[in-house]
């Protein structure tokens, strides 16, 4: 089962994308899995046959209808095979509330 991380984003293969997840629009033609808040860099997919979904509880999913490349300015590219994936964002513990890491 596919399980790889690119910096603060982890891609995990799942059997299905939940039915209530809704498609997320592309940003300037690219699928963005996460934006970097500080640097402005992004974890992005340029391939046409990729679609990001957002479930009501906030989890992101990726549908790749062909093998796609996940690129980022500071990390080596990851090749993702055709399939369905859950996108997990790295977080940091906070005594009061957990927060996400953004590189």
């Amino acid at each position: 089962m596919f399980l790889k991380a690119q910096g603060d984003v982890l891609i995990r293969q799942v059997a299905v994308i939940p039915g209530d997840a809704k498609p997320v629009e592309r940003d300037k033609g690219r699928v963005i899995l996460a934006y970097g808040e500080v640097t402005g860099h992004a974890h992005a997919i340029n391939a046409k046959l990729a679609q990001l979904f957002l479930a009501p509880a906030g989890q992101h999913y990726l549908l790749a209808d062909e093998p796609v490349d996940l690129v980022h300015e500071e990390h080596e590219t990851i090749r993702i095979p055709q399939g369905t994936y859950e996108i997990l964002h790295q977080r940091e513990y906070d005594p009061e509330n957990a927060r996400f890491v953004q590189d």
Partner: protein
Amino acid sequence: MSKPIESLNIHQRWLLRSIAERIRSFPLSTAPANRALAEEGIRQIYDQIGMTPPSTIMWFDSPIGAANFLLKVPKIKLGRNIEDLIPWRFAAWESGQIYCHVSNLIAAEVSDLFQTAWAEVTPAFINKYIWLQDWRFRSDPVSFEFVLAAAQYEFFRNCGLAETPSAQALSKVVWNSDYWWPFANVAILVDRPTVIRWDQSWRLHAESGPAVQYRDSTCLYFDHGRRIPGNIAERPEEITLERINTERNVEIRRIIINQYKRGEEISGAGRFVRDSNSRILDHDEKWGTLHRLKIPDDEPVVVLQVINGSREPDGTFKQYWLRVPPDMTTALDAVAWTYGLTGVEYEKIQGRT
């Protein structure tokens, strides 16, 4: 009445999306309020509910100014809060006159899209609003549910479906002011801030300086949605190890630990642990190093030191110091936790770049 609309054309779809964008930008807008239009809307609202328009419409440059006024002014001068008399509150309005013009499917689509847009930016709105409770208001500022009502009104009106004067008046106030309080004798409106900054999760946040600044120069400071005192935010250089270690108030100490070396590459709890005499709990070439630092009267700070999977242009590897829950004992469990996984799940990882 004409037959309900069954589908939206391209123009209507474009309109729908542009109004959803307007909702998204609403709590984060720094455009000056259009005072004349908002006041016109206020007068129309009072007219429509059979009340004399307020003799005084007061503008404040910040909600703090409005709050201070509301605390001081005798209630009799304001009269009662008439918000509950405004009959077109979101729920009633939604199920009312507009929706009979469109099919249930379209109604659901419009409502869903607007509510999703609103839900996205809710953290910013809540951050902006929640601190007002510090002032122990006698009443809350109007606007929360009215934004959705105004958005739906804009959409259906621009589709040529309905021209309801009451919703139009509401819409004028909503889009042209920030907070507002309608009292029988006085309407109080607040202009928008000049600066507003937020993070990826739409929480108010600024790496340095205020996250919100109002026209009267009042500043509010937030760290990922958490309000922080101005003196701490404005002078991060005063947060030293000694300052942290001698701070007795646990709440303040947590804030200043988070603010330690703010703006530098490694900051917050990770940097604090790195710069202190912490104990190494676990070290693993593959998963990283887990550090633990005891804190008097509070939970220990446990931090995972990890090395980036990709090399920097200069050939070195960047390091990250990530705070993890205090009960973590192994670097594997800690790194797995940062992605919401267990150690057993994470150890199957096939690559990290």
